[in-house]
């Protein structure tokens, strides 16, 4: 860690028993920049957030910032990308691991999504709320995040005798509804109350595919699972 030896530089590495390797030091810097960006954007919006604020909050120098990102937008896009990949891995993983019928798999995926958002409210807010209006690339990433939910929902069409009549945009529209509900809760500072919304949101997702009775049954089971947990 040559940085420490430079005169006049503060020690910006967290103290630890093991010296941090260069790769993990770089990863740690990126993580801190993402965290700072997400927090600042959640507090005051994307436009109001400046690189100066990010650098100060992340406790990195400008040189370090520029080593990773060209500007604020690049850092924000990097944050979105990292958040979407992490969430998608959790959600898709939960969907694949669940071996029950499709409705149960959607329930598992939705549970993973809610958990992920509750555990990482600031980056989730960046993806779900701020990205829509933070420039065309960020908006495209928001769109991409929504679209990743579609393949998990689409198999539900096979359970619907009227599948040919379902609108093409159904999956993305449903995902949009979930994103809105999550975003509103995050803005209200109620990330910790998301679990209570899970059964109803699951019912909302299942209803167009399996009809309301089956959807209500799936939601009831989800509610039981939550109160048992």
């Amino acid at each position, binding site marked *: 860690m040559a940085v420490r030896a430079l005169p006049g530089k503060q020690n910006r590495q967290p103290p630890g028993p093991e010296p941090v390797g260069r790769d993990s030091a770089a990863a740690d810097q990126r993580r801190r920049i993402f965290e700072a960006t997400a927090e600042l954007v959640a507090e005051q*919006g994307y436009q109001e957030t400046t690189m100066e604020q990010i650098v100060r909050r992340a406790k990195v120098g400008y040189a370090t910032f520029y080593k990773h990102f060209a500007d604020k937008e690049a850092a924000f896009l990097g944050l979105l990308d990292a958040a979407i990949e992490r969430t998608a891995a959790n959600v898709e993983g939960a969907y694949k691991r669940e071996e029950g019928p499709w409705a149960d798999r959607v329930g598992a995926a939705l549970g993973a999504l809610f958990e992920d958002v509750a555990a990482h409210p600031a980056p989730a807010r960046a993806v779900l709320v701020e990205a829509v209006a933070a420039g065309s690339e960020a908006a495209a990433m928001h769109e991409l995040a929504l679209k990743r939910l579609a393949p998990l929902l689409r198999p539900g069409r096979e359970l619907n005798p009227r599948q040919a009549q379902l609108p093409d945009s159904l999956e993305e529209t*449903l995902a949009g509804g979930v994103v809105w509900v999550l975003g509103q809760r995050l803005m209200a500072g109620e990330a910790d109350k998301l679990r209570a919304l899970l059964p*109803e949101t699951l019912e909302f997702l299942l209803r167009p595919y399996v009809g309301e009775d089956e959807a209500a049954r799936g939601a009831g089971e989800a509610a039981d699972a939550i109160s048992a947990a």
Partner: protein
Amino acid sequence: MPAEELGPLPAGRHGYSREQVAHHQRERLIAGLAEAVAEKGYAAVTLSDVVRHAKVSRRVFYANFEDKGECFLAAFEIVVDHLRELIAESVENVVGWPQQAIAAARAVLSFLAAEPDLARLCLLESRVAGPALTERLGEAAGELAPLLARGRDERPEGERLPSSTEDSTIGSLVSLLQRKVAAGEASQLEGLLPDCAELILLPYLGPAEATRLARQVA
């Protein structure tokens, strides 16, 4: 408000009272802000842009608004008020909740398609204009909930629907519209009417009837 605070009046005999002029200047400022936002986005808009578009002085701006954010909020509220009136008018002579819901959706989509700049201001720029505006968009969209909830009377077991049904539906609608506007396709919003109708009607009328009615508007 002293007369000199109102800035230069249009030359000649205009016949307006001082109150009318003040009101007119406020409206011009709001319209000026909307134009400036359409041109370069809320974040990049300066006070100079607003007063240039509005053709009034800075002093007039400060007589009406504290800052850019307050002027934006006023613009947002005017659009929301107008949409509220459009929705009320659209359902006036329409019989039956499903047709009223469709008429309201049609009115909103036609207005936003005809005014893509205002659609952008309301649905996207409001999310850039700080956390207060973002919350305001949520509240404004939430006003649709009672209109949707009347669909519960359409079915015997309507009260059994989850209490968040209206929220989820509104979320889907807003998200659908936002993404269309973000894609630069605000002028094609009316094409979303069948999808919007189906989305609104589905929880209350069931899938078969929702699809049937949505196909009729296509």
